[in-house]
């Protein structure tokens, strides 16, 4: 319960942010919110599901490309609804995750380090594929993706304005956060923990471990797909970098900085790392990446629970779930 209060506080602070930081930073912060959503999806699959996915940006990118292709009317000019795009992006990412997950987890299954390498390889393949898929823009990507258009009973509103987009993004992120938190505190969350820590015992109790793993993989992919779909509407373009390897590993760093077993910490890890990056990369220039790499190493070795988790755990008074 205290955990939820902290989360409410975080989202309340975010709500006040546009007043304090001005237009440019509001736009940036919206993008960071979306990265935070990606980090949450990785925290869900890795921290709770025990599936170390080195290619989480695959789902982000797939969602982004589906959204771009649909809302640009490249499939059918009459099907450009933003709602449809968002739903299709989530469904497409989830389906891809189901197919990939079935391959990886069924039978004796692949886990741990092997899984990390294979998902990394898949992200590389997809990035290479998008770079060479000329119908989808190839290396340049797809330009002029329209902003999200909200329609209620005939009235419609396009999310051009930075502040409005920020609040819409914040609403989506908060909704996803509380839905996933609720899901994790239900019986499903218990099964998920068991599938991570004692899969054999869970199976002997009559549960299907494969179904649980697939479901969390697909759910996390859907969230990442949603993030990707929102992201392409912010800047108006989808490019192969969204799907690839750099964003995947960035997400991994955010989540590890936060801590993987805590959605909120992962979310904040993304936002804070990105904010720090935009300030510090100006100060340190090219040394910034060096510092980031070293900081990441130190954080993994000395603070296996993450930089943010320790203070947050004190605040929430427990394991944070």
């Amino acid at each position: 319960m205290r955990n939820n209060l902290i989360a409410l506080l975080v989202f309340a602070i975010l709500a006040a942010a546009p007043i304090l930081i001005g237009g440019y930073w509001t736009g940036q912060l919206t993008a960071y919110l979306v990265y935070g959503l990606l980090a949450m999806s990785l925290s869900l699959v890795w921290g709770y599901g025990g599936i170390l996915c080195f290619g989480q940006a695959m789902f982000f990118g797939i969602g982004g490309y589906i959204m771009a292709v649909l809302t640009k009317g490249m499939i059918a000019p009459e099907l450009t609804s933003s709602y449809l795009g968002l739903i299709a992006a989530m469904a497409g990412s989830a389906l891809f995750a189901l197919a990939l997950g079935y391959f990886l987890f069924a039978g004796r299954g692949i886990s741990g380090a092997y899984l990390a390498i294979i998902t990394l390889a898949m992200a590389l393949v997809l990035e290479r594929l998008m770079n060479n898929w000329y119908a989808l823009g190839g290396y340049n990507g797809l330009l002029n993706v329209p902003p999200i258009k909200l329609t209620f009973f005939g009235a419609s509103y396009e999310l051009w304005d930075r502040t409005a987009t920020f609040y819409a993004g914040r609403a989506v992120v908060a909704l996803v956060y509380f839905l996933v938190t609720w899901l994790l505190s239900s019986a499903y969350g218990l099964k998920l923990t068991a599938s991570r820590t004692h899969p054999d015992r869970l199976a002997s109790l009559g549960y299907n471990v494969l179904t649980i793993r697939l479901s969390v993989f697909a759910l996390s992919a859907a969230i990442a797909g949603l993030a990707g779909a929102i992201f392409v509407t912010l800047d108006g373009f989808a490019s192969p970098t969204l799907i690839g390897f750099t964003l995947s590993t960035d997400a991994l760093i955010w989540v590890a900085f936060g801590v993987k077993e805590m959605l909120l910490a992962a979310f904040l890890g993304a936002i804070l790392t990105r904010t720090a990056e935009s300030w510090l990369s100006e100060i340190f220039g090219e040394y910034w990446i060096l510092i980031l790499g070293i900081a990441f190493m130190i954080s993994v070795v000395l603070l296996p629970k993450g930089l943010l988790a320790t203070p947050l755990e004190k605040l929430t008074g427990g394991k944070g779930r």
Partner: protein
Amino acid sequence: MSELIPIILDVSSYILILVLVALGLMIVFGMMGVINMAHGELFMIGAYVTVAAQGAGLPLMAGVLLAPVVVGFLGLLIEAALVRHIYLRPLDTILATWGLSIALKQLVVLTFGPESHSVTLPIDGSLEIGAFSYPLYRLLLMATSILLIGGTFWLFTRTDFGLMARAVIARPDTAASLGIDTRRMYRWSFVIGTALAGLAGALVAPIISVDPQMGLGYLVPGFLSILVGGAGPLAGVLVGGAVVGGVNNLLAIWISPVAALITVYIIAILIIRLKPEGIMGGRRAK
């Protein structure tokens, strides 16, 4: 037929380099269960040692000899400062060495710049038999690689060190109780693995373009080779390297590099899925 031989030789030299990279990875992984994501960067640094040697006016041979020493020493430092602390947390080794690879890559960018460098061939000539001609350096590269691979196999299967190493791999606790210093075995295996990567990088530097991003292009195929071949017997890495490297290079020549890459990864993932213990069998990491 005469067009085919150079292709086979090109593919073979790629496979041999890949096997050298994969062998280093596998020693570290098999021995300690550590996945070294910075292995590709150590390979890259090996190549940069030859760039630096060339810049200092030294012959390439000096660079090739220096590379394993420099990179092996780096490996010693990495083992002592980083890997030693996280042996018991195998998944964290992936993340920590990933951070290391980011840092090393950026260090090279800061020192040598982001652009690619080229290293001049130390031996210009070609071997010519009738209509057939092939660069001598590549033949030398292949011969050296075969010697190195053979030497590594010999070290791990025929010497006391190898016997102890295999004991540590199979039963670490029993090996320790029999008086084998497992800490020391881990350290030197790690150094051997990294030195092999450095040497492979230095050997291959004259025939590819050397840039800070080159590591990943060998790391992932190297890992796939281990997974495809099987992490148990050393021979697994030969089979895996041949499958991954062979398919990749042949398809790159016949179709396109992109199609080759995609096909290789898909084939590798299929093999790993259908035969999780690899073609040659062996133990599987949990």
